[in-house]
C-alpha cells in the first residue's frame, strides 16, 4: 500500500478505498498551499478523502514546515513522535517468536522494511500532527531521519507543546532535536539504557517467561469438535 503513495505531490487513493473516488478539495487546497510555500521540501503526501492529510517534508525543512503550517492557521499542536519502520526482529504477531524459540525452528526471514503513507526512505521517521480549529482539519507531517544522523530541528520554538513531545521522542528513539532547550530524559530514570520504542528493544519479561499457551501446541486430534461437550 505504501508503494502507492508516491514521491511526488500527486494524490493517489489507496486501493481499498478506490470505490469512493472523491477528491477532497479542501485538503488538496491545503496541500497545494503547503507545496507552494515550502517548495521542493515537500517530498511526499497522501490524502484520505474526507479524513486526513499526510505530508512528508525534507528533514532540513522540518522547522520551517511548522512555521508555515502555523501561518496557515494550524495553531493547535496535537502531538509529535517517531516511527521505527524496522520490522520487529522478535516476530510480528504476539506469539510468533516465542513459538519459534521453544520449538527451535529457525528464525523467520525478516520482512522487508516498508514505510507507510506519504512514503519514506529511512528506517526512522518523525511524525507530528497539527490541527486547525477554524478549518476543522489536521495535517500529519513526516520527515525521514537517516540512520547515521538521527537529528532534526526542533519545533519547540514554534509550538511550545512540542517541548515535551520532543523530549519523549528523544528518549524513546534516541533522536536528537537541534535547538531544543532542555533535551533530557522525561520519563525514564536517568540511568536507563536503550531506546524502548525502537523495534529491536526487547521486552525481557516476554523473552524469559514461557508462554503458558505453548504447553499444548499440537492440534487436538481431528474430529474432536463434534465431540466437544461445550457444543
Amino acid at each position, binding site marked *: 500500500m505504501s508503494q502507492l503513495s508516491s514521491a511526488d505531490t500527486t494524490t493517489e487513493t489507496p486501493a481499498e478505498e478506490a470505490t469512493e473516488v472523491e477528491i477532497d478539495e479542501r485538503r488538496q487546497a491545503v496541500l497545494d498551499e503547503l507545496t507552494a510555500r515550502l517548495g521542493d521540501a515537500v517530498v511526499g503526501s497522501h490524502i484520505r478523502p474526507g479524513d486526513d492529510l499526510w505530508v512528508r517534508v525534507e528533514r532540513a525543512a522540518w522547522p520551517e514546515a511548522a512555521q508555515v503550517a502555523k501561518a496557515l492557521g494550524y495553531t493547535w499542536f496535537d502531538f509529535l513522535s517517531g516511527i521505527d519502520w524496522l520490522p520487529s526482529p522478535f516476530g510480528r504477531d504476539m506469539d510468533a517468536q516465542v513459538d519459534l524459540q521453544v520449538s527451535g525452528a529457525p528464525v523467520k526471514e525478516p520482512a522487508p522494511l516498508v514505510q507507510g503513507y506519504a512514503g519514506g526512505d529511512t528506517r526512522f521517521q518523525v511524525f507530528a500532527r497539527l490541527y486547525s480549529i477554524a478549518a476543522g482539519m489536521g495535517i500529519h507531517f513526516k520527515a525521514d531521519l537517516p540512520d547515521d544522523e538521527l537529528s532534526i530541528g526542533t519545533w519547540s520554538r514554534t509550538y511550545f507543546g512540542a517541548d515535551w513531545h520532543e523530549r519523549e521522542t528523544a528518549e524513546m528513539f534516541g533522536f536528537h532535536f537541534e535547538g531544543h532547550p532542555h533535551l533530557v530524559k522525561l*520519563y*525514564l*530514570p536517568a540511568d*536507563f539504557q536503550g531506546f*524502548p520504542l525502537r523495534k529491536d*528493544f526487547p*521486552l*525481557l*519479561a*516476554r523473552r524469559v517467561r514461557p508462554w503458558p499457551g505453548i504447553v499444548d501446541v499440537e492440534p487436538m486430534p481431528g474430529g474432536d469438535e463434534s465431540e466437544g461437550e461445550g457444543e
Partner: protein
Amino acid sequence: MGLVESGKLPKSLNKLLSISRKYSIWAYQWGLACCAIEMGAAFASPRYDVMRLGVIPFPASPRQADLVVIAGTVTDKLAPAVVRLYEQMPDPKYVISMGSCANCGGPYWDSYSVTKGVDQLIPVDVYVPGCPPRPEALLEGILLLQERIAHEDMADRWKGEPIVVG
C-alpha cells in the same frame, strides 16, 4: 530498650496493645494509579467509609502512618521513593499491596519500566487481588490485616527483621 521487644510484657497487656493497634490504623494517603482511586473510594466515599473500621486516612506524612496501601503501579523510577516512604514510617508499620500491579506487575508484567511486585522492595502484610479491587475488597484486606495484628506477637515482630511474607 522496650519491654515489648524483650518479650517480658504480661500477656493481657500485650493483648490490649494489640487491640489498640488493630483499631487504630492510620493510613498514609498516597495513591499511585487506578487502584488509588478505588482506595480513595474506600477511604473517602461515604458508601464504604473505612473510618468505621478504625482506619484513619489523615496523615499526609509517613511519619504518622501505621499503614501504607501501595495502590497501583510501582515503576522502577518510583521504587526508591517507595522504599524510602516505607522506611520513614515508624515501627510498627504495615503494608497492604492492592491490585495486580502492586502484587506482581499486573497488566504491565512485561513492561520495561514497571517493578514486578512491590514485595520485591518492601515486606507486604496483605495482598488484595483485583484490577482494581473493589473498595470492599480492600476493606476485606484491611479486616484480614486487623486479624493479623490482633494475633501477632509483638516481641517477634519487633525483634528481628520485619516479617517477610510470601
